């Protein structure tokens, strides 16, 4: 072999090694995304008259909100047990779940959405968070796949007027006003609004801030990044501003740290409030203990549990199966699945275009009440928002942490 050829050979080997390593690395990235694939009794259709259809569950099992993600998945699983097998035109259909994890990250979410499309799902339950959903919506819209989320509350999600996005929880346009109204009732004259730079938190804080300013309340806007640990500078700002209340519109990991660090800085008398993003049992652990979390207020994007007609039965089933208290938005995801199946039945077809048309006409009686989806935009309501009797800011449920758990405020 000549010297040149040997060098070439050497170089080829290096390039090959690099390519292999790269493939390995990307393989890792890829598989990191999907922790679970259609578990349970999926498989091929064994008898001629049973047809398998796939429904996607796009949620966030890892990432910052595994508790919300797990609850959403369980909601869909419970619904699968109840509605997963149905008859239509003399044929038996069986649903297979495709559960994918988007880590609540926009980039990951687009990949998951594309995977769902490739899997050939007829509909998707999810995703979990507003920020991540924003990058999935155009993909589902383009491929005409209906998407029903049980927990995306951000008004931004369907502001563009797509007709494939539906939700069974309430829009933050209502929740934000409810938070502002609550702060006013608590006689707050100066209020800090703090978000985490994500689409959900910024949207909710914007609505609340506008409502507070309209009432002449002095506000200060603060923010952090999701994943931040040290909030001492924000705490110092809050201390200097001297507010009566702080409305933290992000999620519980940062909310818990903020509360903890505020207490450590001696700001125990500032009322701590938040939206549905902090109303999780995890928050109490994040603040460093029951006594730190005591007195935190939170609103939620749905009726109070005692006003949800099917809640008791749902909670009993949930606790029996998982041995846990019902996680946030589990019943909304259960309803999302139920509504999707109802739409398929109403359409009499598994063609996604027919399902979308049926969803807009559908009236569904679920755990959270009897609801339909808005088929046209009207004021704060966008296409796909839940329409349900009594959906007003004054009906937004209020919770307070007492003795280590969220209890409804009467």
């Amino acid at each position, binding site marked *: 072999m000549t010297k040149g050829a040997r060098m070439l050979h050497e170089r080829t080997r*290096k390039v090959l*090694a*690099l390519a292999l*390593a*790269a493939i*390995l*690395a990307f393989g*890792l*990235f890829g598989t*990191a995304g999907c922790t679970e694939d259609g578990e349970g009794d999926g498989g091929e259709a064994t008898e001629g008259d049973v047809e398998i259809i796939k429904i996607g569950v796009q949620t966030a*099992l*890892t*990432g*910052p909100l*595994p*508790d919300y993600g797990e609850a959403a998945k369980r909601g869909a699983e419970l619904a699968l047990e109840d509605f997963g097998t149905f008859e239509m035109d003399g044929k038996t259909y069986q649903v297979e779940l495709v559960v994918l994890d988007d880590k609540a990250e926009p980039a990951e979410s687009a990949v998951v959405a594309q995977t769902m499309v490739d899997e050939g799902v007829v509909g998707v339950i999810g995703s979990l968070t507003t920020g991540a959903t924003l990058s999935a919506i155009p993909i589902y819209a383009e491929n005409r796949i209906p998407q029903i989320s049980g927990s995306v509350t951000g008004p931004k999600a369907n502001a563009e007027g797509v007709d494939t996005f539906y939700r069974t929880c309430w829009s933050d346009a209502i929740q934000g006003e409810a938070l502002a109204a609550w702060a006013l009732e608590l006689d707050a004259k100066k209020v800090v609004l703090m978000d985490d*730079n994500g689409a959900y938190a910024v949207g909710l804080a914007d609505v609340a801030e506008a409502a507070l300013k309209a009432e002449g309340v002095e506000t*200060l*806007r*603060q*923010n*952090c990044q999701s*994943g931040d*640990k*040290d909030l*001492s*500078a*924000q*705490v*110092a*700002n809050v*201390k*200097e501003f001297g507010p009566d209340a702080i409305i933290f519109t992000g999620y519980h*990991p940062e909310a*818990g*740290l903020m509360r*903890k660090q505020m*207490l*450590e*800085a*001696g700001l125990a008398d500032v009322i701590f409030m938040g939206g549905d993003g902090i109303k999780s049992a*995890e928050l109490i*652990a*994040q*603040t*460093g*203990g029951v*006594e*730190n979390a005591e007195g935190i207020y939170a609103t939620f994007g749905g009726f109070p549990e005692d006003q949800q007609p099917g809640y008791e039965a749902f909670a009993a089933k949930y606790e029996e199966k998982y041995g846990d208290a019902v996680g946030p938005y589990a019943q909304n995801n259960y309803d999302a699945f139920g509504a999707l199946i109802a739409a398929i039945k109403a359409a009499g077809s598994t063609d996604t275009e027919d399902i979308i048309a049926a969803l807009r006409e559908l009236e569904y009686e679920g755990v959270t009440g009897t609801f339909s989806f808005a088929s046209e935009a009207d004021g704060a309501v966008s296409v796909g928002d839940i329409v349900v009797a009594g959906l007003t800011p004054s009906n937004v449920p209020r919770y307070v942490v007492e003795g280590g758990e969220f209890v409804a405020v009467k």
Partner: protein
Amino acid sequence: MSLDHIVSVTIGGLTVGMIYALIALGYTMVYGVLKFINFAHGEVFTIGGYVAAFTLLGLGVNDDMSPLVLAGCVVLALLAAVLVPMAIGFLIERIAYRPLRGRSRIIPLLSAIGVSIVMQQLIILVFGPAPVSMPSLAVGSASFVVFGIRIRVLALVIIAVSSALMLGLTYLVKSTRIGKAMRATSQDMEAAEMMGIDTNKTIAFTFVVGSALAGIGGFLVVMYYGSLKYDAGFLYGLKAFTSAVLGGIGNIPGAVVGAIVLGMTETYGVSLDLGFMAWFVVAGLILGLYVQMVRVPRRRLQHIADDRRTPAYEKSITDVYRLTPYYGFKTLLAERTDALLSVSAAHAVRLMFGNLFLAVVAAVMFANASVRIDTRWQPVIAFVVLMVILMFRPSGILGEAITEKV
């Protein structure tokens, strides 16, 4: 910004910076010896934190324990948070890096990224995806008040412990046998081997020490913030790596300085108001005036050709700079006879406008002193500070490590 505010933000920045520093040391030491960035280092930190948290949770610490037992538990957790990362650091080096040593530099880098992802998934598998949270301990949240300013004891402990560790590390590298071996390996691995230094052992030692420091960092974070998530190491690792580069990669004191600068930039970036920022502009103005009045005229005088040097000519050059509004413009408007003089005049006028601009900016900022900068600008501010520092000092604040001759 009130004094209270400034002190709390400064202490916050120092605490954050010290934790970055503990992690940054691992990056910088490995780079110093192997000229390679160990991207899995952030995960070693996370493991340290998780091990500490689970030890404390497993021992069931609470405030009702007697102080002695509690102290024992904390020491045990610290030990676990040091020993486990040490073992993991050793294994990573042995399994993922040593077989690739001597290849092109990009290959261990890829391996490092792969290890980082694998470790993150392992943390999820072993500990679960939910963040681990510690119950608040009275010891952890104790604070005292000086002149009306509340200071957390643990913040001071973090600053003290980190400083002590860094001094210890400097001693280790500068004045011990193994430190000497590290420096030799870093300088020239082959030559060191020929001198009878076991470079494999030295490199493994470097990884073990760096991992121990990261583990202590994880322990402190768990004690201070009370919670940790499986991917925390990514962000901390990124910031620590930035600190190491900012201070001069491979340079041990540099990593500490870079980390403190980064920590301060982050916390100040969140709580700046215009009045406070104006002082930085004032500092810039003072520097600008110094340049115009002292530094540049002195330089210019050296450029005068010997045959033209007269006291009067020297004075005219100095005056162009020091009394620009009159002499500068006068020279510019006069018929150009002298090249040096007219170039100096144009230069002086530019400098003057620059300084005027700074003065106006400072005045406007002071006039709006109470306006707070939107905290969303924090990343931008941090980025600009880093850019400016690296523009003027491309190899970092303290320069890249040049190992001194052994």
